[in-house]
Structure formats: structure tokens, C-alpha cells
């Protein structure tokens, strides 16, 4: 059985790419487009492009906030310091590990939750959706504290509830080691952001045409065959968009680490490193350089998703 999708609808020429024979109407449409998008573009430039440019500029200086008089231009030396420091590479590895683990688990769990929401009886569907969304509504710092208290050796209940699991006892110090700390951090992240991914996947599920499902049923396809050959291929765009958004989000992990370990036991993420240089050490130059590198990493992830996996962002919006 081959993959079943509906034939792509004919795409219209985007208004932003007029050819030589642009009509007056197309011109005025283009003008209207700029008028409508212009204010949003201006705001975006002001709140994102300007700070990014400022950070790039600051990263070229040796600049301590408490000593502005001795600010000096040092070129790319801040980047040299960072890239030759093992701490940077270790933080990058830790961040990559957290991203990979949380996004993979969230995708599977999120898909299951999306299926539950999609198939649930319409009478309980609103309640179910609200219930699934609650963790996402909780502030990250609050959720981090809740998970920390749960696993705390003195106040936590996990050690006494799960004392029967081999390796867990009254004296298990979850925040005393790298892997156990990372486990709790990942659990907290997964609990909190799975609803987000499941909501995006639910939107994707709703886009799978019912006619294809019925046709496959008539052909005698099993549930598993329909899932693999009909449902998944038809919601590829939604899955990719969900993955992209969550990967970008997960790569900037900060709150849970800040609350639970404070970066101890080699659990620092790249964002945490930027925080420590900029806010704690007040080394604006060095910290800006870390932020710029973090920004480049995020851009790299986004580009590789869009180019590598051919994610078409317009599809998730129901265009095209």
C-alpha cells in the first residue's frame, strides 16, 4: 500500500513576486500588503532586530557594566574566549541532550494526547482539552519549584512513594548528580510543554481528510496501516512545525535549571551561561557574545528544519 495524500492544490503566484507584466491591480495589492504588514514589521524590527544588532555590537567590546569608562574594542576575542572554553561545549552538549530527549518524548506523548482529544466524545472534549492544557498554563518557575519540592530529599514525596523501585531510596539525592538532575529537569520540561505540542498536532489531525480514512477502511486497511499510510503523511507539515517550535523553545531552556540546580553538577545550559556572564558577572561584552552564539545556534536549527525537512510554514496556517 502506498502513501495516500490528496493531490496538491494548484499554488497561486505569491503577490510579493510580481513578474515584468505587473498589472496596476497587482501593484495596488502589493502596496496594500505593505501597508497592512508595515506596522507589524516596524514593531518587529524595533523589538527584535534592534536588540540583536545591539548584542552583536556589544559582543565586540570588553565591557563591564560597573566600569563603563574602560570599555575597549576587542574585535572577535570574546568569541575566541568562548569557543576555546570547554564550559561552552559542555553547556552546548547538555542543552542538546535536554532538547533531544524532551522533544522526542513530547512528540510521542503529544501525539497520543492529540489522538485522545480528537477521538473523545464531543461532550467531554472541551473539559479534556482544558485538563490537558493546564500544565502549559502554569508558569515555568512555579512548575520548576513544584518538581523540585517533589524530588527534594527532605520535603519530597518521590523517594518515599517510589522507594520500591530499585535504585530509589530514602537517601536518593536527585539534585546531587548530573544524570539524576537532568532527569528531573527533563521530566519537568516534558510535563509542562507536552500540551503545546499536542495542541499543534491536534490541529494537524483535524486536517487529515476523512474521505481518505474511509477509502482506506473500505480497502481493508488496519488501524496501524491507516495511521502510517494515511494519517501521518497527511499531517507531516503539522508535525514538522510542532517539532520546530518545540526544538527552538527547548534549546533555550533556562528556568528549570535556574530553580532546580542553579547550574550545579554540570547542568548548565547555553542560556544559563549567557545569564551568568551578562547578569551575574556584568561582563556585557562576553555575555553578549554568548547570546549571539546562542542566537546563531537557534537560527541554524530553524534553517535546517526549513531547508532539511522542507517544512513549509505556510501549510500549518492552512494556506497554499
Amino acid at each position, binding site marked *: 500500500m502506498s502513501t495516500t495524500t490528496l493531490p496538491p492544490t494548484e499554488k497561486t503566484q505569491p503577490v510579493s513576486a510580481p513578474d515584468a507584466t505587473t498589472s496596476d491591480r497587482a501593484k*495596488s*495589492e502589493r502596496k496594500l500588503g505593505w501597508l497592512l504588514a508595515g506596522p507589524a514589521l516596524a514593531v518587529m524590527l524595533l523589538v527584535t532586530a534592534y536588540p540583536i544588532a545591539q548584542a552583536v555590537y556589544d559582543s565586540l567590546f570588553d565591557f563591564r557594566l560597573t566600569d563603563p569608562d574602560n570599555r575597549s574594542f576587542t574585535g572577535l576575542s570574546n568569541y575566541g574566549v568562548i569557543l576555546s572554553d570547554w564550559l561552552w561545549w559542555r553547556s552546548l552538549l547538555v542543552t542538546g541532550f535536554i532538547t533531544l530527549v524532551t522533544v522526542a518524548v513530547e512528540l510521542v506523548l503529544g501525539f497520543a494526547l492529540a489522538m485522545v482529544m480528537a477521538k473523545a466524545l464531543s461532550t467531554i472534549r472541551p473539559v479534556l482539552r482544558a485538563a490537558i492544557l493546564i500544565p502549559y498554563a502554569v508558569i515555568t518557575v512555579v512548575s520548576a519549584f513544584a518538581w523540585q519540592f517533589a524530588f527534594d530529599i527532605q520535603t519530597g514525596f518521590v523517594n518515599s512513594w517510589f522507594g520500591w523501585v530499585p535504585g530509589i531510596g530514602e537517601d536518593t*539525592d536527585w539534585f546531587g548528580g548530573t544524570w539524576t538532575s537532568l532527569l528531573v529537569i527533563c521530566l519537568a520540561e516534558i510535563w509542562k510543554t507536552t500540551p503545546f505540542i499536542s495542541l499543534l498536532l491536534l490541529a494537524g489531525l483535524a486536517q487529515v481528510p476523512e474521505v481518505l480514512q474511509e477509502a482506506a477502511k473500505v480497502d481493508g486497511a488496519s488501524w496501524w496501516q491507516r495511521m502510517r499510510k494515511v494519517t501521518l503523511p497527511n499531517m507531516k507539515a503539522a508535525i514538522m512545525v510542532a517539532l520546530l517550535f518545540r526544538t527552538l523553545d527547548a534549546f533555550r531552556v533556562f528556568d528549570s535549571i535556574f530553580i532546580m540546580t542553579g547550574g550545579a553538577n554540570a547542568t548548565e545550559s547555553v542560556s544559563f551561561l549567557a545569564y551568568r556572564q551578562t547578569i551575574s558577572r556584568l561582563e556585557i561584552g562576553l555575555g553578549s557574545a554568548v547570546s549571539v552564539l546562542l542566537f546563531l545556534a537557534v537560527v541554524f536549527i530553524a534553517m535546517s528544519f526549513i531547508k532539511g525537512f522542507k517544512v513549509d510554514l505556510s501549510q500549518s496556517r492552512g494556506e497554499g
Partner: protein
Amino acid sequence: MPDVSKVGSDRGQTGRAGPFHSRRVRRALSGAAAAGLLSSVLAACGSDEGGVPTLTWYTNPDSGGQAEIAARCTDDAGGQYRIETAVLPREAGAQREQLIRRLAANDSSIDIMSLDPIFIPEFAEAEFLAPIPEDVAGRVTEDVVDSAIEGSTWDDELVAVPFWANTQLLWYRESVAEAAGLDMSEPVTWDEIVEAAQAQNVQVGVQGIRAEALTVWFNALIESAGGSIIEENSTDPSEIELGLTSEAGIRAAEVMRMIATSGTAGPALSTANEDSTATAFESPEGGFNVNYPFIYPRALAAAEAGTMDASVPEDYGWAIYPRVDADTPAAPPYGGINLGVGAFSEHPDLAYAATECITSTENQAYYFVTNGNPASDTTVYEDPEVLEQFPMAPTIRESLELAAPRPQTPYYSEVTGGIQRVYHPPSSVEPSETPEAATELINAVLRKEQLL
């Protein structure tokens, strides 16, 4: 081709017909909103009610004592000034971050600040503190313990007003010490208490968390061994000389390792802070705990509330901080809060007048009794009410006289951050390697050649 007429209503919110379709109405409304916002911002900036200047005092979180003192001093000022308090974050590091960012932007709303002494050199060096008038400096250092004056001094000049002074004591269970045959009326060493704890199967509470508390503990060890984290101080970060690899520095690392690997430091030493060690000390495993005096009122309150047996606080004993070597007096941790006046304050004279009121003997005694924060003014320790509430007050005073401050440098964050990174977890400390590694790291960080 998409239909132009549908673009607005289909794709965006901008063209949707709302209640304010008239452009004029919308413009008028947004103008009014902007004006309202502006006027409220302006009002917040200079709210000198009825001509009485308002001083803003940024306080660290406490049990309401500083707010009450602010109200009392406002009454005493007889219309000269009003003090309003604004509460800072709980962590000392976060308090510094907030204050420094605002001061770097020349914030004139910061009149008085409750400052952790470790950050005072940084504030002074950056010229964020208004100079203290000489007559005020003379009055606010009268009868004040030396460690608090030292903690308020930078470059041989008083730059902050000593307010309250904290120190750690060695808390012990009298029953445990008795069973172990320890004579607690004489100074004890770390070796002796660890041995006693091993024999009695109880814990020795120390703060091994990767936080400031670890530096507090380490500094007390190295100072007690006769050394210092910084041996040669300088305002040029590349000229600071560290004393971690000195004999005293290695001795401090040895003691830290000995305690961490003795099996008496509890199962969660690498995350143990002041609160968690106080909790462990309250439990049946509690034997010894180096901690601030707050643990005593905390235990009394728990006993009063019925969450703890009344016999537990009755079993609490206190002594001067343990010695590293039997023949050298201990150098206990020094902490507390001193008051700084913001360099950009519009009323520095009034602010200094207010600090004199805040740190008066009566107010320090009030603060000690109600909030449990020990005074820097030595005469407070003779107050009968203080002695009744805090029977260990004379020991606190003695400890304050012995106490050694943490390194005073404008680069304190780098120094403490480096120590926390290398000496954590305490069980991993190797006296032959750790001091060397920490020195290398901190020097590289100070030269801006490494991340922290």
C-alpha cells in the same frame, strides 16, 4: 489571485470591524491612554507628598522589621522626610543584580539600600554610593563591632553604614555532646565534632550547596587556618593574588574533604543550604550544625506551633564556630546587612540622616528581638529584652568579634563563582589538586580569558 477585499478580514486582526471603527475615536482613546500612563509614571517618579521628600529604602526580605523601622523613623523625622520601603529579591546575588543594573542607569529613586557586605566594594568602586559625611561616619561607627565596620569599609574609607551583623555559631544537641563526652565550654575542632558525630551516629550540618553558602563555609575554614582567599588585593583584577594554594588554603581543603567524606554530613551535602541543615538538625539525626542564629527562634516557633516536640529546642546548645587547628582561634563567618546611600539620590543628606535613625540602638534592639537579626551595635547586647529572647546573645557578640569577612573585592562575583565551581561538590575536593585548579580558573576568569 486572492480577492483583495477579503485580505483584511480573512488574514489579520487589523481590518476587523471593532467597536472603535472611527479613526478619530481610536486616536483620541489611545492619546488618552498614553497621557494617563505618562502621568502615572511621572507621579511615581517624584511623589513628594505635600513637600515632604520621600526616601525609598530598598530592603532585603525579612519578617517586616525594616518596614516597621521605616515607619518609626518617618514619625521621628517630624516631617523632614518620609521613608518608603521597596523589597528586593530573596537571594543576595539577585538583590545585587537588580540594584546594580538600576544604578548603572543612574536611577535616582534609590535613596537607601540594604546591602550584603560582600558587594559593598563593587558598589563603592563603581561610585554607586554617595560619600558619607564625616560627622555621620563618626556617629554610626560608635560602639560597633569591628567586623561590621570592616565590612562597610573600602579603600580605608567608610562607604556604608553598619546596620546588623550576622555570624554563624556551632549549634549542638546537648544530649549528643554529653553522650560523646565533649566539653563544649572549651573550644572544639572540626575533627572532634566529626569524631563525636560518628560515635553517636548523628549528622554534622554544613552547607555544601553550590551557592554563596559554600563560599561562606570555605572562607571560615581558610581564615580559621590562618589564611585568606585573597592574599594580595588590588582594584586591577589581573593583579589580585589568591591564597588558595597556601598552607592554610590546603588545610582548608583537607578539612572540607574530611567532613564531606566522613559519612556524617548527611545524604544531600551537595545541595545542603542553611535551611535544609537547620531542618536536619531538628530531626533525630541532628547532632551538630554550623548556622546563623535564626535556627533558634525557628525551633521555638515550631515547638510553640506544636509541629515539633518542645524538648528539641531545649536540647539546643551553642558555642563559638569550630576551630581548624586546636591552638588557633576560629574565624567564624561574618554576614548581615549594611546601609548604602545611592549616588544618584536627590536627597543624600536626608538619606544619611535616615540611616542614623534606622541604625539607632533602639531600632537595632527592636530588629534583633522581633526579626532575630543580631545588632552590629555592641550596646544592644546588654539590653535585658535581647538577653531574655536570645540567651546566646553574648556568644553571638563574641563570635562577631572573632569573625572574618569574605574577600573584599569589586570582583567578588568572579571569586565566589570560581570557588563554588571548583569546590563543589565538597566530596570531590582533593587538597593536592583543587586549590591549584581553583586558582587557575579564578585568575583566568579575572583576566577575562575564561567563562564562569
